């Protein structure tokens, strides 16, 4: 029986294929616990095993490596799931192809812009809607006379196609939109409500309302209505936003105050009007990414231009509300995502110290200009109030020590909690 370790970020629909298949077959599939998306899969050790650096990736217990979600699911499946006859096996592969090359591009082109992952282009979306209609119509007529896609029992084809339809059913296909595709919906609900699926994905809720595109949301994605979209934007992990209600209040204030601002295209970046100085931030970011901290930290001090740049310590105010480590990490990366346009003139290393239910977040920030940067653009004001900001004097040794600690992801917080995870804003 197949067994091994699956590398993936949480809530990855591709990884679900293998995890659900394993529920049916009884294969021992362990999800790598310490996996950090964007870090683990970029590490040398990982790339040696999986040169593409993509997930899901599977390491068998006897040290063989597999990539591509369908292949992994096939490997950990059982005879029934793979198809019992040669024809059924071929049909399963046919549906793999259908899911990947027909459903996924159409679904992504429609859903991703609404989630803010891709730029919104009306024409592209209209195109995508047509494509989605086409694939759903094909599926619907196939499933009129059939209970499952291949044969009369559930196979990998069902698992693969259903998981690929996740985003559409989660965000787009509200009751009126899914009405013409009743057979697809019947089948989809059957597949995701099998105990084996529920064990992996939990209870799945079909969309009540289509996710609307709202350009303002992009600036204030912490509002309640867009909680889901943020979830998707952030390396697709599940953040439980502890500050949600507060953030919502704030979002509403912004709604009123910035109605005019938001109506205009946000073109100017506050950094544009500041003198550049001698510190080439892009160059440092490159150096930092490519070199060891032993080299990059001296490099930072060598190049740093205190006249035009400032260093800040940002400490999260509500540490006592932090629970799970991965949720706190999502809080950090969510903030980074929302500050996307700030990357041009800023660099930061934000770290989580401690463990589940006993942790703190703090970070060292470097940005162009001498004042608190967040007030300069309405785009940047979502999270900063949740932090205490202290400007550090670049010539003090204490500052040097902090920079070293945060840039190299070592040490402890003020209360002695050990470094757990770090995120770089660059």
């Amino acid at each position, binding site marked *: 029986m197949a067994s091994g370790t699956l590398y993936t970020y949480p809530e990855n629909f591709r990884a679900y294929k293998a995890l659900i298949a394993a529920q049916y077959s009884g294969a021992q599939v362990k999800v790598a616990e310490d996996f950090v998306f964007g870090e683990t899969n970029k590490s040398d050790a990982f790339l040696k095993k999986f040169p593409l650096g993509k997930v899901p990736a599977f390491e068998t217990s006897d040290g063989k490596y597999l990539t591509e979600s369908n292949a992994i699911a096939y490997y950990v499946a059982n005879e029934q799931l793979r198809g019992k006859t040669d024809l059924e096996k071929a049909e399963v592969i046919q549906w793999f192809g259908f899911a990947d090359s027909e459903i996924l591009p159409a679904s992504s082109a429609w859903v991703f812009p609404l989630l803010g992952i891709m730029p919104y282009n009306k024409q592209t979306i209209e195109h995508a809607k047509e494509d989605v209609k086409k694939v759903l119509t094909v599926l619907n007529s196939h499933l*009129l*006379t*059939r*209970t*499952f896609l291949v044969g*009369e*029992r559930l196979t990998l084809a069902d698992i693969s196609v259903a998981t690929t339809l996740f985003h559409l059913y989660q965000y787009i296909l509200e009751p009126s939109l899914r009405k013409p595709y*009743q057979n697809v*919906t*019947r*089948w989809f*609900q*059957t597949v995701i*409500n*099998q105990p084996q699926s529920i064990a992996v994905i939990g209870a799945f809720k079909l969309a009540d309302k289509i996710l609307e595109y709202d350009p303002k949301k992009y600036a204030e994605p912490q509002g309640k209505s867009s909680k889901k979209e943020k979830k998707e934007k952030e390396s697709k992990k599940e953040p439980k936003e502890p500050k949600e209600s507060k953030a919502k209040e704030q979002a509403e204030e912004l709604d009123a105050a910035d109605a005019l601002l938001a109506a205009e295209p946000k073109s100017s970046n506050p950094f544009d009007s500041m003198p550049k100085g001698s510190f080439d931030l892009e160059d440092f970011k490159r150096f930092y990414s490519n070199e060891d901290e032993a080299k990059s930290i001296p490099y930072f001090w060598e190049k740093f231009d205190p006249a035009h740049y400032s260093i800040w310590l940002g400490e999260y105010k509500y540490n006592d509300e932090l629970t799970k480590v991965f949720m706190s990490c999502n809080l950090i990366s969510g903030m980074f995502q929302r500050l996307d346009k700030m990357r041009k003139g800023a660099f930061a290393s934000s770290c989580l110290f401690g463990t589940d239910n006993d942790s703190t977040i703090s970070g060292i920030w470097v940005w162009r200009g001498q004042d608190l940067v967040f007030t300069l653009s309405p785009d940047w004001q979502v999270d900063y109030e949740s932090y205490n900001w202290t400007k550090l004097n670049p010539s003090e040794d204490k500052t040097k020590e902090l920079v070293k600690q945060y840039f190299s992801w070592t040490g402890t917080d003020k209360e002695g909690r050990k470094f757990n995870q770090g995120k770089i804003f660059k």
Partner: protein
Amino acid sequence: MVLCNVKCVENISKYLNVAPGKLYVSKNNVVAAKDLLEKESLEGFSTIVQTLVKLSKFSNILGKDAVTQALTRQWLEYVVLNVNYADNLKNVKRILKVFQFRLDNPNQNVINMSFTLYSQELNLILRKSTYITGTEKTVADVVLYYALHSIMQGLTHQEKAEYVNVSRWFDNIQQDEKLRQELELINFNLLNLYL
């Protein structure tokens, strides 16, 4: 002759691996079981089926939660009250016609009283769900399979296509050899020609 007969209960007990004891038709003209429970004879199709399931190793097929269990019982009643008398052609047409009528006018009341008791008719229910009571097979599917087998056997391909949801469900259910026993595997392959 009715469909919820001794033969049907025998099939069900065989599927469930339970010895039904002596089955007979009582003086009330319903199926009864003499030795299923100690010192007690049971009368009535639904009661006997539920007892059989409880005595079997598959007690979960009564439904995994309260709602499903209630639906399962409702369908057992439905079988007794409606499908039971579908053993002559006139009644078959009536049942299927009602199914079809419900399919086209899901919000209108059906004139026939015995059917209005059950707001969810088979074809309508099966249009939206894979199995009778939802997403998992329950004893309602098993019982309806046995009860409907002779009806489905008598349908033309065109009629099968007309009641496509029932046909789709039936074809899925009948693939279980243990369930099918010595009953004929009904062919639904030509369904597509009439759709």
